[in-house]
């Protein structure tokens, strides 16, 4: 089609372009351009008035030169002159020049606006459109001031041509984006909304972009657009592919308009009107159904247009987050795309699933695709697709799969593209911290991170591991042992030396008993790295050395010698020299007591929010980390740090990038911050048993005020499973969750921990028992950023339990703010022995939806045990006395955990009985004795547990003075090993 012959070729322009293209070098090109500029300038300045055509040609040449990347400083006036030409092509070139080379010269703007004004009032639709295009392309404030009042009038006037309406709508949109204060819709609002009903599809397509933008800013004023949009969408979705003529694109009816309609609906919550909502759900279902139909064309344009609508529909479904059925269908559809041969679809499916993962309805469904996503991370050839896979793994991570995901991300990190390593490192660090149940796993993970990608481990990451180790005394020994081993590697990353120096300086004493890691061995190991390190790391190591002098007086002379050497005390670096001098002096003149005070172990860090999360957020830009995630992170971070209000006494230890982590630069107040070792308020809840941390907690006096943490005893148990969300809608108390017995069993041998957790709620428990009385603290944490309303809890004792147990609760506040935690105290009195557990029902509304769930409160008969010590002779005498058949209860069962002696002992102690040593003739067996205290009577209990390591079996025998107790204890205990 010789369409161009209808256009006006400008021969001079073509020749010029051709010349430029033939230039062999940049210099030749510049020379040719300068020649042309001189020519044009002389023409413009010449006496002879130029005709319109020449003016157009020269202006067009200037434009070409500018678009090549050269500066243009004249010709604007000639372009403005062209605007008032009555020849269309001259006007058109004038407008193009102005649009591309707009100048804020106020004189010119006034002239341009004048020309635009004339064209807008010309009533010639082609001229009007040119003027509107120019305003939309320039979009300056001056133009908004001049035309923002006029354009809405043009847009809604009855006699305006369709093409002008289209331009006017988008022109207004552009002005609204630059100067929202100048675009006042006011009286026009409803007429603009009704453009959605316009017969001309092009008008609707243009107007809807404007309406969407305005709706985002003033949703209430525009809310009538929802029902109009739904009916328009419904008409398109149900139309045959030929109905819409030229608006059908590769057999897909109006794909652009459909996407824009679905996008507009995402500015609003689900429609309240049942009929509208029904119609919309129908549309969404139809779109999902169409995805399963065979394609009408093999062309990629067909599938792209169809899938564009599908993805936009899925985005709307995710936005509503209220239709479980649609969410699961969406997830399944995306699941199919995950394995599609089109890379684009795999990419988009991964991206879209990321948002689905945060919906409580689809989180579980997303998790089922974990293997496919891991595979994508390993095998996709395109780094941007791998990046999406990593993002999705991060989003789908929860307690149940954290170990697997972190392991996969770590192994991917070894070969990951440099461009995404830092972000991957941050993500691994966050997940490891967030889902650490077992802190030795956390420490291992971070040290692995440093080993694999040390260069990409930012300060935030290694600060964080130190903060956590300092705040959690149950992991300190392990951390010391692990860094000590890591430092053995001949080449280890400097970040490893930093972490190692810090941790050994604080906790090296915990492993000093082993001759292989004696104080001197530790010191020599650290010092062997010293010379390879940068100044800040050396400074840190010097501080570690002075801490060594306090921890291990026997290293004093060796370390003093090092400090005294010329390379330290005369170091050219002022910081190092000063440290060497000061530490040497301190170690020589200070008494042991002073030294011990100044170099006291660091107090716990008060910080509550993970700085890593903030860093990731900064890196990814706003919006990358959702607010709720941050809130959650804050809460989780708080837990890790022991949370709570610590007062400001320890605030001085907040690390800042420039502050010395060891705090020695501001050492003076440290002593006053941690005088708690001899506190009288010994933590009444602290765990006992061999797996528990050292008896005296540094901050024990604070700990009992704090919400429960994943305390040390959870090392012995599996992490609580991520329970399914409670989706029961009835107002009646829901039946107990299927897993409630399993949750109960986790608390038989421990008193504190997390009882339950789902996407919304976390319930922590802390409890203590004396005689036949118990007190339980329940902590309800709102994990979302939205408040829970009508929050209420009830505890009931079903059946005969109400005469066996007396349970009293205090009501909780009905409002739980996002990210907040409320506490409830429950008093329990054991009247007589019992077998069932009280039921705890929790109800609240989250975003309007009623949540209703019932758990079993972990009050079991063994909580009322008093341990009884007795000698072998007494034990067997009593054993024989309890010889009636019903007094004995026995079970033989397979071990479901590793048969580790220490773990078994810890559990038996946690049961509440006394563990009797040297009673059973077979040293492999365990025997225990205790008395259960109820108000009505005391029940004596004897226990014998016989492991068979070869068969991985146990035989458990209980003999109690009451048969029901024997049976109940036997049932409970059989689930523990």
């Amino acid at each position: 089609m010789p369409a161009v012959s209808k256009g006006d070729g400008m021969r001079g322009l073509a020749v010029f372009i051709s010349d430029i293209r033939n230039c062999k070098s940049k210099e030749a090109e510049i020379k040719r351009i300068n020649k042309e500029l001189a020519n044009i300038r002389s023409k413009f300045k010449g006496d002879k008035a130029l005709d319109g055509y020449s003016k157009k040609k020269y202006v067009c040449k200037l434009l070409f030169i500018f678009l090549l990347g050269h500066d243009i400083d004249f010709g604007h006036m000639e372009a403005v002159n062209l605007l008032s030409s009555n020849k269309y092509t001259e006007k058109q070139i004038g407008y193009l020049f102005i649009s591309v080379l707009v100048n804020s010269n106020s004189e010119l703007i006034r002239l341009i606006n004048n020309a635009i004004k004339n064209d807008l009032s010309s009533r010639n639709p082609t001229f009007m459109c040119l003027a509107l295009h120019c305003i939309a392309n320039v979009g300056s404030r001056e133009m908004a001031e001049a035309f923002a009042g006029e354009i809405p009038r043009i847009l809604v006037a009855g006699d305006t041509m369709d093409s002008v309406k289209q331009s006017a709508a988008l022109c207004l949109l552009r002005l609204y984006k630059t100067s929202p204060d100048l675009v006042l819709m006011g009286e026009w609002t409803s007429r603009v909304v009704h453009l959605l009903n316009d017969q001309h599809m092009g008008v609707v397509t243009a107007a809807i972009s404007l309406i969407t933008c305005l709706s985002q800013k003033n949703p209430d004023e525009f809310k009538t657009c929802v029902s109009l949009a739904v009916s328009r969408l419904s008409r398109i979705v149900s139309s045959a592919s030929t109905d819409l003529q030229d608006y059908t694109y590769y057999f897909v009816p109006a794909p652009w308009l459909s996407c824009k309609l679905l996008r507009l609906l995402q500015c609003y919550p689900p429609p309240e009107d049942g009929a509208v909502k029904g119609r919309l759900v129908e549309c969404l279902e139809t779109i999902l159904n169409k995805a399963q139909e065979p394609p009408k064309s093999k062309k990629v344009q067909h599938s792209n247009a169809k899938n564009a609508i599908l993805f936009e529909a899925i985005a709307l479904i995710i936005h509503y987050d209220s239709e479980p059925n649609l969410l699961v269908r969406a997830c399944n559809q995306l699941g199919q795309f995950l394995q599609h041969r089109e890379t684009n679809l795999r990419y988009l499916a991964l991206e879209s699933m990321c948002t689905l993962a945060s919906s409580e309805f689809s989180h579980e469904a997303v998790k089922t695709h974990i293997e496919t996503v891991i595979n994508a991370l390993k095998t996709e050839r395109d780094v941007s697709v791998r990046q999406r896979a990593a993002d999705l793994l991060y989003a789908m991570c929860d307690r149940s799969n954290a170990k697997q995901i972190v392991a996969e991300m770590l192994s991917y990190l070894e070969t990951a593209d440099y461009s995404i390593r830092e972000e991957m490192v941050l993500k691994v660090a966050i997940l490891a911290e967030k889902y650490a149940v077992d802190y030795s796993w956390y420490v291992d993970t971070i040290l692995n991170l440093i080993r694999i990608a040390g260069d990409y481990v930012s300060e935030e990451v290694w600060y964080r591991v130190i903060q956590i180790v300092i705040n959690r005394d149950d992991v300190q020994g392990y951390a010391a042992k692990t860094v000590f081993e890591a430092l053995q590697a001949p080449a280890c990353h400097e970040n490893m030396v930093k972490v190692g120096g810090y941790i050994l300086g604080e906790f090296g004493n915990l492993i000093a008993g082993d001759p292989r890691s004696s104080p001197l061995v530790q010191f020599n190991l650290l010092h062997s790295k010293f010379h390879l390190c940068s100044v800040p790391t050396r400074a840190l190591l010097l501080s570690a050395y002075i801490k060594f002098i306090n921890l291990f007086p026997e290293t004093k002379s060796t370390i003093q010698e090092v400090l005294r050497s010329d390379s330290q005390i005369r170091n050219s670096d002022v910081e190092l020299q000063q440290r060497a001098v000061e530490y040497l002096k301190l170690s020589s003149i200070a008494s042991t007591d002073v030294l011990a005070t100044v170099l006291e172990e660091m107090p716990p860090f008060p910080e509550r929010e993970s700085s890593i999360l903030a860093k990731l957020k900064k890196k990814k830009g706003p919006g990358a980390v959702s607010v709720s995630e941050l809130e959650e992170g804050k809460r989780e971070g708080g837990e890790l740090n022991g949370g709570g209000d610590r007062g400001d006494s320890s605030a001085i230890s907040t690390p800042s990038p420039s502050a010395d982590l060891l705090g020695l630069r501001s050492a003076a107040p440290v002593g006053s911050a941690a005088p708690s070792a001899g506190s009288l308020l010994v933590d009444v809840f602290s765990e006992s048993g061999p797996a528990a941390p050292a008896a005296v907690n540094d901050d024990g006096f604070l700990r009992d005020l704090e919400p429960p943490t994943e305390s040390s005893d959870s090392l012995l148990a599996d992490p609580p499973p991520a329970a399914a969300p409670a989706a029961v809608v009835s107002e009646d108390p829901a039946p107990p969750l299927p897993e409630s017995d399993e949750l109960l069993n986790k608390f038989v041998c421990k008193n504190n921990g997390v009882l339950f957790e789902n996407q919304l709620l976390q319930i922590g428990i802390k409890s203590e028992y004396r005689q036949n009385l118990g007190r339980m603290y329940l902590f309800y944490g709102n994990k979302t950023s939205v408040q829970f309303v009508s929050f209420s809890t009830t505890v009931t004792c079903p059946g005969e339990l109400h005469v066996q147990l007396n349970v009293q609760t205090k009501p909780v506040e009905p409002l739980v703010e996002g990210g907040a935690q409320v506490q409830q105290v429950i008093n329990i009195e054991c009247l007589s022995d019992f077998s069932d557990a009280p039921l705890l029902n929790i109800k609240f509304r989250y975003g309007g939806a009623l949540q209703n769930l019932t758990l079993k409160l972990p009050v079991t008969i063994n909580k009322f045990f008093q341990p009884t010590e007795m000698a072998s002779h007494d034990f067997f005498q009593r054993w024989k006395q309890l010889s009636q058949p019903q007094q004995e209860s026995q079970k033989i069962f397979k071990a479901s955990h590793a048969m580790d002696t220490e773990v078994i002992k810890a559990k038996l102690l946690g049961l509440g009985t006394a563990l009797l040593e040297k009673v059973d003739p077979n040293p492999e067996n365990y025997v225990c004795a205790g008395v259960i205290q109820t108000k009505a009577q005391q029940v004596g209990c004897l226990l014998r547990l016989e492991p068979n390591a070869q068969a991985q079996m146990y035989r458990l025998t209980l003999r109690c003075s009451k048969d029901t107790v024997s049976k109940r204890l036997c049932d409970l205990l059989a689930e523990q090993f």
Partner: protein
Amino acid sequence: MQFMLLFSRQGKLRLQKWYVPLSDKEKKKITRELVQMVLARKPKMCSFLEWRDLKIVYKRYASLYFCCAIEDQDNELITLEIIHRYVELLDKYFGSVCELDIIFNFEKAYFILDEFLLGGEAQETSKKNVLKAIEQADLLQENLDFQIRLFPGVLNPSMSAESSGLFQS
């Protein structure tokens, strides 16, 4: 959409359309960065990229890359089809369009784009309606003396890549 760039395999910019206010310096910097990034990608890779806080959607037609920057909530696939529809419009107007048509008739390429997209949003998606608007404009013009069809092969026989139809490969 925030902007659209057309550039050749050699990295030469053929068309630039900005829908957000940026300084010339910023525009040049962005162009350099994106051209480099997109040209470095292999043929079978996906058409979408994250870049700053925007999404880049690009597609190659013969010797030309079409590259759009869209915002977070915008739809990648429909943007890919915006590019395709624009190529169709150019093809229909020029008759089997090639890169040289766009070089020598760059102003037409801008006019067609303005009829199709305005302020970064689709204004008219019907191919017929867009071409009707352009052809009406052509009929309005009076200077018929200098009409020529710039046959690329004649002007520049050596540059075969630039004269191959965008739909050919």
